């Protein structure tokens, strides 16, 4: 103890000024490694996307890049392929966003109100698909729904349906099928978020509603829904982001097909940039995809979240 005390005292007078200078540098020393790696592999590529999107570049050697202003954007917005991909993303929204939210909120409300036992196990089982990689989900469902050796169509045939749809390979069914896979992957997540939110609603609110003679449905609209507004906003915006960015599951199940029935923006972006060597055009689609996602999720947060402020 004594040595430390003298040590501090000795150094305190003469070295003070240099110490203070180190002091103001100190936090930056802690930040430096993180900032460097973040700048190199996040910030620079992000700015790079915007710059690249203003060029015509085949991605091979730098000196072939040509500045073309907003041409890539006008080309994308005018292209039938981009519009098709964008519309497909929009068509995924009911499946990716609304369906799992409904499939989550109903059992969560019931489990909470009836104080069901075994909540931990239900929660674990329901949440499981959410931690799984999209590729795995895609591969597993591609088998389950395979028209020749998948169990689903085998079952349907044994029930006497001679020609069941070919699901992921069918021009009409492919998109809804991909959508259902997305809903399947998300409903457990919605359940968990809603259940956590329900636990935060004061029980007096339910008691008051019951005293007023409210039934299950009235209780749901008067207490549960307003009480869950924050959670609803979070769930809807996350689901929306997943719908607009969908890639892994689609790449492994349909790869955009049949035809371009399940082509989505992310897939079109990767195919343009790397498949057909149009780095600038691909970057422009990346910017459009990001803008759409940002606007969409802000809209939902504004609509559902901020009002109770």
């Amino acid at each position, binding site marked *: 103890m004594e040595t430390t005390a003298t040590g501090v005292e000795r150094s305190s007078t003469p070295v003070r000024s240099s110490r203070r200078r180190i002091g103001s540098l100190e936090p930056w020393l802690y930040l430096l490694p993180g900032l460097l790696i973040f700048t190199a592999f996040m910030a620079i590529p992000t700015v790079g996307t915007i710059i690249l999107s203003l060029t015509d570049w085949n991605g091979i050697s730098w000196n072939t890049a040509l500045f073309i202003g907003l041409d890539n954007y006008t080309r994308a917005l005018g292209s039938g392929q981009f519009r098709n991909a964008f519309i497909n993303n929009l068509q995924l929204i009911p499946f990716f966003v609304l369906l799992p939210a409904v499939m989550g909120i109903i059992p969560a409300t019931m489990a909470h109100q009836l104080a069901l036992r075994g909540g931990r196990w239900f929660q674990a089982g329901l949440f499981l698909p959410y931690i799984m990689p999209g590729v795995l989900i*895609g591969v597993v469902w591609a*088998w389950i729904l395979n028209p020749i050796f998948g169990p689903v169509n085998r079952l349907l045939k044994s029930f006497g349906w001679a020609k069941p749809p070919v699901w992921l390979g069918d021009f009409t069914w492919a998109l809804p099928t991909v959508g259902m896979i997305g809903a399947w992957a998300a409903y457990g997540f919605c359940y968990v978020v809603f259940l956590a939110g329900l636990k935060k609603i004061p029980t007096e609110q339910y008691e008051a509603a019951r005293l007023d003679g409210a039934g299950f449905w009235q209780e749901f609209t008067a207490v549960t829904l307003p009480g869950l507004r924050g959670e609803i906003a979070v769930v809807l915006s996350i689901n929306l982001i997943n719908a607009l960015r969908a890639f892994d599951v689609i790449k492994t199940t349909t790869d955009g097909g049949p035809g371009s029935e399940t082509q989505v923006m992310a897939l079109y972006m990767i195919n343009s940039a790397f498949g057909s060597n149009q780095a600038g055009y691909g970057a422009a689609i990346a910017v459009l995809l990001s803008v759409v996602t940002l606007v969409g999720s802000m809209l939902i947060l504004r609509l559902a979240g901020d009002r109770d402020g």
Partner: protein
Amino acid sequence: MVKRLIAYTLLITGVVVAVLPFAVTFLASLKTGPELAKGVFSLPDDAQWHNYRQAWVQGQFQRFFANSVIVAVGVVIPAVVLSTLTGYALARFRFRGSGLAFTYLLLGLVIPLQAMVVPLYYVLRELGMLDSLIGLILPQIAMSLSFGTLLMRQCFQTIPKDVMEASIVDGANSWQSLWQVMFPLGRPMIGTVGLMFFIWTWNEFMLPLVVNINPKYHTLPVGLMYFQDRWTANIPLIAAGATIIFLPLILMFLLFQRQLIDGLTQGAVKG
């Protein structure tokens, strides 16, 4: 009573629908092709473990698995350490530019990989990191930092000031007080953050798909995709490959259920 019955039925159906595809896949991995054709729910007569050997050796899953482990470790440990450092700097020191640095690091929360993957590919090409594992590791550390910084800063802020000041009075400098006092106190949060990083890295698909063409550097998700393309009709073999990917995840989930659910519901905002 009727209500309870309906509720239990609903929940049990929900759990069964969520879990069944994985259970059925695992069962399929232990069957022969003809056996599988007879039914998916039955137990295998004679467990065909050689499906795993075939996927592991001929299907290259041993290589994909090793690559996935190397990348996961290579991302998780540095990303946890760097997030601890940035979170600590932003929680402990008051200095000019701290707000700006924090906002800058948080930008990663709203920038998904899709928004930067095209130039990132060329950055990695310039650095000679295409077709390598380091080319997967460094970008994913950067992608993890936003969430890590946010959580570690929050965590260090909740540690009472006097705890930290006590260690400084004892003569510790900020570096010592970080590792001797703050780090042990922040361990639960550090664990959660590490788990999130692991899941994200283990599951990442787009980055390795774009960056590594050479199968030598494939990780499990990309490996599984090409494997599925090659063996389309050999379901038991594909199922074995799929099981190799999800078994470690299920194990993790059973061990760290609470942290995983808490972390993933908080971290869901991340791209």
